[in-house]
């Protein structure tokens, strides 16, 4: 069973439909990759190599920037992806 859901054709990450064990082989866009960790449903896996500083695309939009080189099959999460969202500027002042 294909465990990776690709939400948009531009995406460079897939989302796990179910929990998987480390080392599970998946075929995405005719390319074979090996999931690097045991992960639960909803977690993201790189479906191709993502360079440091490159946009991580899910739903076809940028959800943040890669903090390091991310190989295909690697878990994409807090350790290698950072938000580029700047807090709405005057939320605290109420202006």
């Amino acid at each position: 069973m294909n465990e990776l859901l690709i939400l948009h054709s531009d995406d460079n990450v897939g989302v796990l439909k179910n929990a998987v064990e480390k080392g599970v082989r998946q075929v995405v866009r005719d390319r074979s990759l090996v999931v690097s960790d045991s992960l639960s449903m909803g977690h993201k896996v790189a479906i191709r190599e993502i360079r440091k500083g490159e946009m991580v695309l899910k739903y076809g939009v940028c959800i943040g920037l890669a903090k390091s080189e991310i190989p295909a099959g690697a878990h994409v999460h807090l350790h290698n992806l950072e938000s580029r969202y700047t807090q709405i500027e005057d939320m605290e002042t109420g202006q």
Partner: protein
Amino acid sequence: MTKPGAMHAWRRSDGRKGIRNTVVVTYLVECAHHVARQIVRPFEGMDVHVIGFPGCFPNDYSQRMMETLCTHPNVGGVLLVSLGCENFRKGQLFRHIEATGRPVELLTIQHSGGTEASVRLGRDWVSKTLSYLIDAPTVDMVPSELIIGTICGGSDATSGIAGNPAAGRAFDMLLAEGATCIFEETGELIGCEHIIAERAANPALANELVGSVKKAARYYADMGYGSFSQGNAEGGLTTIEEKSMGAYAKSGSACIQGIVKPCIVPPKQGLYLLDVVPDGPPRFGFPNINDNAEIIELISCGAHAVIFVTGRGSVVGSAISPVLKVCANPETFARMPEDMDVNAGRILSENASLEDVGTEIRDKVIALGQAGQTASERLGHQEFVLTYKSFDPLGPACLPNVAAA
């Protein structure tokens, strides 16, 4: 003659069409709620719904909501139930309904001899009105005449990856057929307001879209709910923009044509954001106290039906317009199937595609105009809630294409 694939509808005096011909029994203060509820009891299983406003103090928003809902295209007739001494502007409401040509009656409990006499009078009026409405002619309706809303509630990790993206595909399909679609929940869009802005019909609208999310952020912060967390990292969410995209995905991918507020019907076809957050500082509490408060605001914008995406398993429907429930979590669907219309969980459990489930949602929306019923309609759900709120008029940049309409 009916065209193949057409929906059956009732045409109203303002030219709009409804996919239901419901009688609403409307209490004008909580003190009249029991009488309204008793009036509809013999009509269980029929299109007779109770709506109402509990407060005794007048409020422009709730007055306008009642006027708009009582003349919604899905409504065929209205019985107003007043205690007598409440401060609701019932004469204004009565005249507003009467001007549309719908059957309308005002029953005042204090003048009608109290509870039992009022219940008897009310039931007589509803019976008479139902037998009148049964002969009302229907007309054909096509998808381009539909207004469809979407919300999510009882969400879990499956909502953002299966349910909302599938609902988004259904929106894209309906919009391609010329329908009008409305999404909302600006409080859940924080972090992706610039992504939303990129889909605006013009730059002035883009600013308004960012402003409406900013307003929501400020409102929740003022109420002491300013901590929009980074989402549930255990569920796999990493950034706030990703978390918000999960909710935003149900709007699909079309260009955004404008922003509306409650009681404003989109002036032309396309995709709109409904801004449900009150203007000014918080005065009456939360923007919306529960899912039904949001559903009824979508209906006030003319929604003929609402697509409701759930993960943990909501059971609600609504008065006036059917609520089509899309269950994103396959385990929830297996546990409570009679409450769900669409099993979007099969994207996760059976390799179904987002397009397959989007098509099923789109087809089930159309079927609502072809004698189809939602699960919540079959089960008799007619939830309704209306509270105090205040809004400023819509800014001129919110509907950029009105002049061209």
